[in-house]
């Protein structure tokens, strides 16, 4: 059957190939433009050529010497990294309990927790800020980290994963005298390494890119995270687009590198969110 169809098929396949490739390249081109602009001289930025005529690293040198940019990067690594580690620990504990331990009210508590996923930060940010202010956490690392560590999505995904692990495994371990913590730590956690690494990439990305919460909770520049830094940098140097694009590249590169290194995990973790 395929042989009969072959000639027609080949033409439409090439058209499909070219239209997909063109669309994909157009989609990615603004990011390529950003990188190119970051290497351009100030006068050249609105030159429509995609490649810089005289590539220079001056813009990057400026960003790192004139601003405490390294500090912002370290802040962001620290905050995003800490949130990722704590969130993975807590969510995997809760996910395991909801999937594999029996207790009264399990389903209703899970539903209540899951329904909080509809509540986005933007919607509760005013009372949340007032609450965190009352706790004395404004302009602290704790204030940047703790309030945004808890989310129902991670719990849900890990629960789904643990439901797929055969219950016999736990029964056998209990007969061998293992404690629940022992089962979680020695059996469940090692088994869930793939999904944990996928979620780790995802959580780190989300928190590296976070803007509204750090914007609200920190006014002290020493605590700034990179997104706040580039946003306010743009406010100060509104026309110096070559510097702004260089700073943007510095902020975007870690996420793009993470993406290319852990593409499979990232895509898997998004796929699992598409609940069926």
């Amino acid at each position, binding site marked *: 059957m395929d042989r009969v169809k072959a000639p027609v098929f080949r033409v439409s396949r090439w058209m499909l190939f070219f239209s997909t490739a063109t669309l*994909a390249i157009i989609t*990615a081109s603004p990011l390529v433009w950003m990188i190119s602009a970051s290497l351009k001289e100030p006068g050249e930025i609105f030159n*429509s050529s995609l490649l810089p005529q005289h590539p220079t690293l001056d813009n990057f040198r400026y960003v790192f010497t004139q601003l405490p940019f390294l500090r912002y990067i370290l802040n962001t690594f620290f905050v995003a990294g800490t949130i990722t580690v704590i969130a993975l620990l807590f969510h995997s504990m809760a996910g395991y309990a909801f999937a594999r331990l029996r207790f009264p009210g399990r389903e209703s508590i899970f539903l209540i927790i899951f329904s909080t996923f509809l509540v*986005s930060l*933007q919607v509760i940010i005013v009372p949340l800020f007032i609450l965190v202010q009352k706790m004395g956490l404004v302009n602290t690392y704790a204030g940047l980290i703790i309030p945004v560590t808890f989310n129902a999505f991670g719990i849900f995904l890990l629960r789904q994963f643990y439901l797929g692990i055969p219950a016999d495994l736990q029964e056998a371990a209990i007969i061998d005298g293992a404690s629940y913590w022992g089962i979680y730590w020695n059996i469940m956690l090692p088994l869930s390494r793939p999904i944990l690494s996928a979620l780790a990439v995802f959580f780190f990305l989300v928190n590296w890119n976070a803007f509204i919460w750090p914007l609200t909770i920190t006014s002290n520049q020493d605590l700034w995270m990179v997104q706040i830094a580039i*946003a306010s940098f743009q406010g100060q140097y509104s026309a110096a687009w070559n510097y702004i694009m260089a700073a943007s590249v510095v*902020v975007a590169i870690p996420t793009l590198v993470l993406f290319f290194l852990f593409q499979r995990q990232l895509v898997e973790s998004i796929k699992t969110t*598409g609940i069926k």
Partner: protein
Amino acid sequence: MDDQPRLSLDGVQPSSGRGLGGSALQRRGQTYWSRSRKEALAAWLFILPDFIGLLIFVAVPMVLSLSLGFFSVNGFGGYKFIGLANYSRMFHDPLFLESIEVTIIYVVVLVPGLYVTGLGLALLVQQKIPFIGLWRSLFFMPYVVSLVVIALIWKVLLIEKVGFLNQMLALVGLQGQAWLGDPKFALGAVLAVTIWFLMGYYMIIFLSGLQEIPREYYEAARIDGANAWTMFINITLPLLRPTSFFVILVSTVAAVSGSSSFDLIYVMTNGGPANSTSLAVFYIYEQAFKFNDYGYAAAMASTVVVILLAITVVLFALTRGGRFHLA
């Protein structure tokens, strides 16, 4: 591995609700009394950290937001009960009403826009084409970059006269515009950038939905002489219903609550020009953190919460849960 979670999910939670789990617990209760208590205690300890965290940082703010709306809060943290004053002020505030209007246009364009682009791209990259992995990555790439960076890039690309887009338009003889400086175009620009940013994410979701559809259905339809379009209408779309439900729910919630473009608007247009991109959540944020009017902001925010809840309930009712196997 992909199949197991759903199998056991159905086993643990039959559609009849908590019946089976409860009776199993009772049956075990007599023989394993001490074990089931130990198990329940352990479960609570495992859940406790997340439970407390969600309680303090999500549930309490939710309740606070509903009550805070009845107070006037001054810059020094003084609270005064003012009844429904914030709520009646809301309905007479032209800027708030305008922001609701902007939000409605935004949601009505964004949700179908993401659905069509996401599904379209998924159908495209589902084909067997050389380097398909690369093309998928390129479509998805904008999504991993922060919205702040995205906003900065497009701010330059859309600059009046000398911006890249206007230069490209001039090449083909079209008149450039002040895309971000003209109230007629700014919301459209924000929407286009948001769709460009998010379509790769929805492409992945749709792709995994498409991969769940058994190949045999298409084979059988092809033998019966069906063309691509009838197969799409009669096989793909109906079998994608759960994925579609998920996409519409998530994109609507994200659009109304502004999580899909708050950062973008903050950096790219700051709600302007002439409030044309001031989404309700953006206006609320300004009232709270620019003018310190926490009580008024909370009143408006709780209105948005009510709207969100209503949308969710309607979506669930319309689709009878969209076969949303949650519990």
